[in-house]
């Protein structure tokens, strides 16, 4: 919020309204770093992907969230990884933990209520500071050999509901044959991309669902898979995911780092418009508002940018859109450097810093030909996607300041309408009509009665 607004407002309630899945439901999507493939020809796609990427100077943990909604037996994923992966480097993460970080970092709507204008002339800045103050985190032998030429199944693991294989390959056609014969349906065009990864000495992490184990464990849905490894390559492979894509896809990267904000080194990273006052009715339509806003931002950057939605020290939040994460949750998500995995909310102390960056990208092969390459900056400045509802004072405001206050409201509403139109591309006339319906009238407002009339017309300054 700008200092100007801060000076004029007193916040009595700061309400975080979470748009955890916003923007996600916009476009059908395949998958971020691999592609989902089916055993049969059934249609498979995800609406979007989410990745938690914990990075500490090469120690990497990638948690992949599948919001796959098809039949589990048809789920499969192929992800290029930079090194061989041992069993102990693979884990399952509780979906709730990822959802928690998602909610914690999601773009938010905040509400402020105007003060009584008759009493706010000698406005006390300290009260504002109290409002905005940081909250500490509370509490077939030969034939096969030919057909699978160059493919080595380096290991196979049973991990919870998943059957996982780690492959290395020398030739992409052998790899494609192996994947196809093992029930992974490989889209046309993937072979060239696989060949590129093979030459870059990447390994392949491939996973399918084991229905028996899934049943035994009583899992109803597929839990996020986590892979941990050490690499200099701070990147996410996108390219396989664009091969069979049906239009642009959305990816949200939640990066946990020690030192500071993460940005893409090979694409523009752009902050989303934030800290703007919007009409009150947006409260009822926040998801569609945010989707439209994101779409506009993508269009403005000609779909060539990655968007920053949140960048903040994990030790505090303001306003908090969700309860701060606990140490054990951060460790579960891969931030093992923080030193503690207890049940306490994370607090930075002696070198155990944690910083979260939320990046949102809408991508396709034409606009994002290359995988995302990241770099960790030392920038620890705070940023959040935040949109402000500012409720007018509803008392009598019967004083000369109240007269000016009431007179200023239509212009303020107009400014909110224009902001909303600009952010979302919605029709300004429709916005104004909706505002009228929801109590934000553009008609001139004034105190009624003879007293106020005399004050306005005879005793005005």
């Amino acid at each position, binding site marked *: 919020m700008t200092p100007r607004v801060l000076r004029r407002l007193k916040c009595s309630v700061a309400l975080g309204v979470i748009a955890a899945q916003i923007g996600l439901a916009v476009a059908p999507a395949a998958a971020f770093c691999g592609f989902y493939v089916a055993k049969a020809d059934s249609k498979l796609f995800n609406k979007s992907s989410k990745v938690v990427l914990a990075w500490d100077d090469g120690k990497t943990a990638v948690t992949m969230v599948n919001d796959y909604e098809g039949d589990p037996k048809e789920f499969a994923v192929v992800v290029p990884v930079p090194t061989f992966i041992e069993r102990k480097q693979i884990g399952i993460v509780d979906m709730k933990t990822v959802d928690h970080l998602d909610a914690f970092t999601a773009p938010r709507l905040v509400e402020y209520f105007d003060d009584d204008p008759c009493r706010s002339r000698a406005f006390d800045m300290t009260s504002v500071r109290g409002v905005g103050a940081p909250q500490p985190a509370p509490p077939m032998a030969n034939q096969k050999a030919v057909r699978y030429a160059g493919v080595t199944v380096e290991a196979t693991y049973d991990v919870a509901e998943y059957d996982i294989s780690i492959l290395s390959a020398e030739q992409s056609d052998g790899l494609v044959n192996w994947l196809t014969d093992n029930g992974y349906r490989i889209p046309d065009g993937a072979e060239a991309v696989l060949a*590129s990864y093979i030459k870059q000495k990447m390994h392949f992490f491939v996973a399918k669902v084991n229905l028996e184990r899934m049943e035994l464990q009583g899992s109803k849905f597929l839990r996020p898979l986590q892979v941990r490894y050490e690499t200099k390559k701070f990147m996410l492979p996108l390219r396989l995911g664009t091969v069979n894509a049906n239009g642009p896809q959305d990816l949200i990267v939640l990066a946990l780092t020690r030192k500071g904000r993460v940005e*893409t*080194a*090979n694409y*523009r*990273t752009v*902050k989303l418009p934030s800290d703007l006052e919007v009409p009150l009715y947006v409260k009822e339509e926040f998801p569609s508002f945010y989707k439209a806003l994101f779409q506009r931002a993508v269009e403005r950057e000609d779909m060539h940018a990655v968007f920053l939605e949140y960048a903040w020290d994990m030790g505090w939040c303001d306003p908090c859109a969700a309860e701060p994460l606990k140490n054990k949750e951060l460790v579960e998500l891969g931030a093992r450097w923080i030193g503690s995995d207890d049940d306490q909310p994370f607090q930075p102390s002696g070198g155990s810093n944690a910083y979260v960056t939320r990046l949102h990208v809408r991508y396709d092969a034409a606009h994002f*030909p290359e995988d995302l390459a990241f770099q960790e900056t030392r920038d*620890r400045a705070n940023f959040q996607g935040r949109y402000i509802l500012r409720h007018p004072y509803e008392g009598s405001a019967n004083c000369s300041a109240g007269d000016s206050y009431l007179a200023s409201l239509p212009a303020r509403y107009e400014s909110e309408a224009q902001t909303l139109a600009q952010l979302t591309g919605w029709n300004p006339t429709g916005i104004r009509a909706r505002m009228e319906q929801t109590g934000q009238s553009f008609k001139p407002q004034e105190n009624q009665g003879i007293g106020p009339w005399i004050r306005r017309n005879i005793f005005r300054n």
Partner: protein
Amino acid sequence: MAHSGSVHAVALPERYPIAQRVAALPWRAWLSDARHFQIAALATLLCVNMSWLDFGAKPLPSLLAIASTLGAQITCSQLWRLPRIDLRSPLITGFSLSLLLRTDDPALMAVAGVIAIVAKFAIRIDGKHLWNPAAIAIVTLLFTTDQAWISPGQWGASVWFAALLAFLAILVLHASRRTDIALFFLGGHAGLLVARALWLGDPLAIPLHQLESGALLLFAFFMISDPRTAPDSRLGRLVFALAVALLAYWLAFFQQLRPALPVALVAVSLFTPILDRLLPAERFQWSKPSLKGAAS
């Protein structure tokens, strides 16, 4: 950046007041000096950054970088008793630092400016400074503090393309033979990226996208092409440019080093004196000495 002022061979019969030594050049001389156009191009980029398309430069750090390079140039010119104080080269260095270097502490930008200029005056071999000032300042900060980084990918295609055209125009209009090194380097760098894509079987969109980096342009047109630090002979410059391109490629793709270009330049610059001895040629100077007794 880097185009340093003349610093060597100075024995002044008397000290001149600073005001007299900041030489006023005739209009034609202004037009014939590429640095004026470079300053205009970099200033425009900085304005674009501040007003329209943010690629990360902030007002205070930029101001500190520019003020510190200018201040350091004036101070060092006094200490080294130069007949003229030339503020054009430090201004280019200041702009380049503003556009490239990012820190979480603005004071470090001032430190970078001082490192750049002091290194230019103090670290000299055969009367020629060894490192491009901005490159050595960036690399020093990257490796000695934990608070600096460069953001290579933030320009976006339109600004990148406009900048490329502007820089090429300056290069062509002021066809100094020395600036061939920018083209040698860009050719080598692009060649390696395209060769990599062909080897991997990747679409050409990938190397083209990789070339679309603002940092690459500043590097090619202002750092490696600094005529005051580049090797004297054309063959020397070709060898130098290709060596930088190769080392940068190795650093970027095998070591995953994001600021590969300035690091490669600083490393290869160590061999410039050897190249100059093996392949001797006339030394570059920006302009003829304007005061009697002051060389180059």
